[in-house]
């Protein structure tokens, strides 16, 4: 049976990018692949939207980028999480858990 993909809630893309990069240095395409992999291919992300997200995170100092050569011998830009980014990810995970918990509690209320 085909799995239906879910759209992302606003504000969650940045957190997912940080999470993907917490597992290692990746280029933009790799970030998308990693998100698909860790979400069990359940999230629907327009691939182009990853890049403004990555640039925003770099602007905030949470990720750092540098040009290098990819596995297929092409020039690619690789991103890695900074120390500030790692802290931000922890904060966002905590906020997300609180929000998800509160929403579930509200939905289960009878």
């Amino acid at each position, binding site marked *: 049976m085909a799995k239906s993909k879910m759209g992302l809630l606003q504000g969650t893309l940045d957190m997912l990018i940080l999470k993907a990069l917490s597992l290692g240095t990746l*280029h*933009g*395409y790799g970030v*998308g692949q990693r998100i698909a992999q860790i979400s069990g291919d359940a999230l629907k992300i*327009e*691939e*182009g*939207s990853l*890049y*403004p997200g990555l*640039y*925003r995170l*770099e*602007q*905030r*100092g*949470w990720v*750092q980028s540098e040009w290098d050569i*990819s596995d*297929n011998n*092409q*020039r*690619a*830009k690789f991103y890695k999480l*900074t*120390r*500030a980014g790692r*802290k931000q990810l922890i904060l966002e995970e905590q906020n997300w858990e609180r929000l998800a918990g509160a929403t579930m509690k509200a939905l289960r209320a009878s």
Partner: protein
Amino acid sequence: MGAARGRDHEGTARELRVKTMSRVRAAINSIRARLHHDEIAREVETELRFHIEMRRCANIEGGMTPDEAQRAALQSFGDFNRVKSSCCEIRRSLPFNTGLLRMGLHITIAGLAGAAALWTVNTPHHNLPSLLSQLGFVAVLTCLFVVARRNKKLHRQ
């Protein structure tokens, strides 16, 4: 307890240092992006094209024909030009709110205009050219202030 507090202070100082360094790096990137506009646009384009190429190869490996693979890669990427211009825009923006900086500039210009006006009123004028030059100075500062205010209004719109 004192040692724990000392460690807390050390941790906070380190966090502040990391945050400041990140901001400084982002500010340098943004200034570079403003100065080398074309280079940044080319860099962004190379990066986005790399993504589409990777997706195209994956699609071919998945069994699509090269044409189908290219079409599907472009479709799953979304609006290329919109993504490119958003990325360039983000690279050019400063990593902090420039409102305070602009406010400071307005206050400085207004202060200088006020001081120049006082100086004009309180200085005895022995000849017309010196009076005109002082009035000209005040007029230039006032114009600068008006232009700065107008820019701020346009920016808000």
